[in-house]
């Protein structure tokens, strides 16, 4: 009967463990909340890295601009997230335009390195009579850490730049209305790697940490922040959590169950009844 007890205990433990892990995954900061509708975000855009407007994943940022402007937004991406940046440009009335134009989004990481789009229409041509143009760029999955020589995307700020890549000179300066939003999807532990950045790739983080240490206000997130600083909801995850914990733990449980089963198979039904118990 010991076997049965052990089996029961193992099953219970496994159930509890998996349930706990599920809850942990749900609570985990790396689990992103990306409402598909898109909450209203900022209505302005920056015009340089320094003045980029912070926007959160799931928010829909809008801006009124002129054709030819370089518009910048900055959004925080955490490890394990795969972001898709979408932009839509409402072009000026066709009657006032002179030629077709090409629009493009570029995404840069916190070190201002250009990040590749794995798929999506990163640049799109708008015909002379088109009313709007849609762009999209899906980034690679953000890794918690990488070698210094690698260009892997790392947790931190990501800059989105939207501009007209090709435009007739006559069409410069005409009013456009742009919309930008980013959605993130959690890729789970498939891309979890060992090693993590001590601090996310957020420009100016040295000054911020110093100011924080000076004021001694740990944990109290300031209301006034420099323009180019954003954090994911719930802060940076630090890259220590991944669903690999659950997989490995579940594997351990299964191994234990299999071990108990194997033991019971070869050991037989315990002490034979005709054998007297030991002294």
């Amino acid at each position, binding site marked *: 009967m010991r076997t049965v007890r052990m089996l029961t*205990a193992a099953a219970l*433990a*496994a159930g509890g*463990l998996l349930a706990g*892990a599920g809850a*942990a995954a749900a*609570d985990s900061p790396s689990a992103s909340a990306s409402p598909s509708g898109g909450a209203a975000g900022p209505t302005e855009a920056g*015009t340089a*890295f*320094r003045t980029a407007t912070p926007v959160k994943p799931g928010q829909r940022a809008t801006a*009124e601009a*002129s054709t030819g*402007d370089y518009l910048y937004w900055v959004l925080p991406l955490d490890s394990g997230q795969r972001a898709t940046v979408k932009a839509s440009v409402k072009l000026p009335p066709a009657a006032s335009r002179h030629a077709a134009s090409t629009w493009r989004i570029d995404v840069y990481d*916190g*070190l*201002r*390195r250009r990040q590749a789009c794995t798929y999506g229409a990163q640049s799109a041509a708008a015909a002379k009579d088109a009313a709007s143009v849609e762009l999209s760029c899906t980034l690679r999955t953000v890794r918690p*850490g990488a070698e*210094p020589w690698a260009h892997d995307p790392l947790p931190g700020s990501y800059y989105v730049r939207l501009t007209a890549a090709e435009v007739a*000179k*006559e069409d410069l*300066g005409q009013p456009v209305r742009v919309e930008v939003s980013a959605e993130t999807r959690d890729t789970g*532990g*498939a891309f*979890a*790697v*060992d*090693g*993590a950045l*001590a*601090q996310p790739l957020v420009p*100016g*983080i*040295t*000054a911020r940490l110093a100011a*924080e240490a000076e004021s001694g206000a740990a944990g109290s*997130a*300031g209301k006034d922040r*420099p323009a*180019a600083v954003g954090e994911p909801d719930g*802060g*940076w995850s*630090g890259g*220590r959590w*991944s669903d*690999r*914990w659950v997989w*490995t733990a579940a*594997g351990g449980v*299964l*191994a*234990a*169950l*299999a*071990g*108990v089963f*194997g*033991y*019971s198979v070869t050991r037989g039904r315990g*002490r034979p009844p005709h054998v007297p118990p030991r002294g």
Partner: protein
Amino acid sequence: MITRKWAAAGACGLLAALAAGLFPASAAAGEPAAKDSPKVELVLDVSGSMRATDIDGKSRMAAAKQAFNEVLDATPEEVRLGIRTLGADYPGDDRQLGCKDTKQLYPVGKLDRVEAKAAVATLAPTGWTPIGPALLGAAEDLKGGNATRRIVLITDGEDTCAPLDPCEVARDIAAQGIHLVIDTLGLVPDAKTREQLVCIAEATGGTYTSVQHTAELSGRVKQLVDRAAAPVVTPVATQGAKQCQGAPKLGAGLYTDRESFGEHRWYQVDVRPGQELRASVSIAADRAVNNDYGVLLRAVTVHGREIVRGSEAGDGRTDAISTGLRYPKGESDDEDGDGGTAAETVCLQVGNSFSAPASVKTAPGMPVELVIDLVDGPDGASDAASFGLGRGWWLLGLLTLAGLVAGLVWGWISRWRISVWRTS
């Protein structure tokens, strides 16, 4: 028992992971250092051509006045706003005099809306279009302090005061390192006006807008004034050297410099063991450049060995090209024997491969923006996978199989021991 231990270990790991994940590595606070309130100067063209009635059936002047009234009403409290006119006073034909005709209509300072509106109401389209002198005057008006500075130039015609090219003037103003941005608005612009205004905006990192309606004008100017009010970190001007020796030593921060075509600039950064150097550089294309271009940022030891580099190339229309690198310095550095805690001097080399048509002036150089951060080094990676953990069905299968084999062997051993006990 084994099962319970596994469960306990797993739960502990989970708790640790959760605790680590829930408390953010950086709970951020902090804001840019105390700064003067932003300064904006609106520069309005009051030349004779503003009489033309082609904006919503009104004259350009009337449209501008209406827009100014709306802008003055909506100006944020903290913005110090001034107004300068060009071509407002001299109606004659003398080019010499006409090209000096720019004056400050309302001084840069705390805005008195009634006074400012009254001053704008007196304007009547009169003279020449001396854009260059007006920009110089506006830059002078905005001098002093560490405020954000912005000039909004509203004009309907090209500069009529050659040879002083307003585009060159704008670039020279920008090169003074006073962080001044010029935004330009063209009222129903023709091709030459547009070209000139685009050039002025490009030279200072500003924007160009072509205006056909009054609403567009007031909306855009309001937007630009609001942008001036947005808080932004002001960079520190520095000047890189031709080689690493004698290069300026930079700490963490935001810096600006100027770099000519094909020039190299060097800077030094001290990195202590256990620290990570992060450097990003942007080079702005503030003039007409050839179609293909690039930037190279290298971290080099004082002995000239390259540690890591960042490079980027591009083509077509752009405002800037940028790249970055990180260099985590290991905890122990035994290169010199004395090792220990001595900081290593890392040389940063910034180069570019911009080129320009022969007609484009190469001086002053293009604006360089350099961001340097020094943070703690990353946690070392001992394994390709996260903490050496695995995932997937193969892992589960393998572990299960291993467990089964272990159980079988264990059971067999116990059975063998029992039989030994029975026979003995």
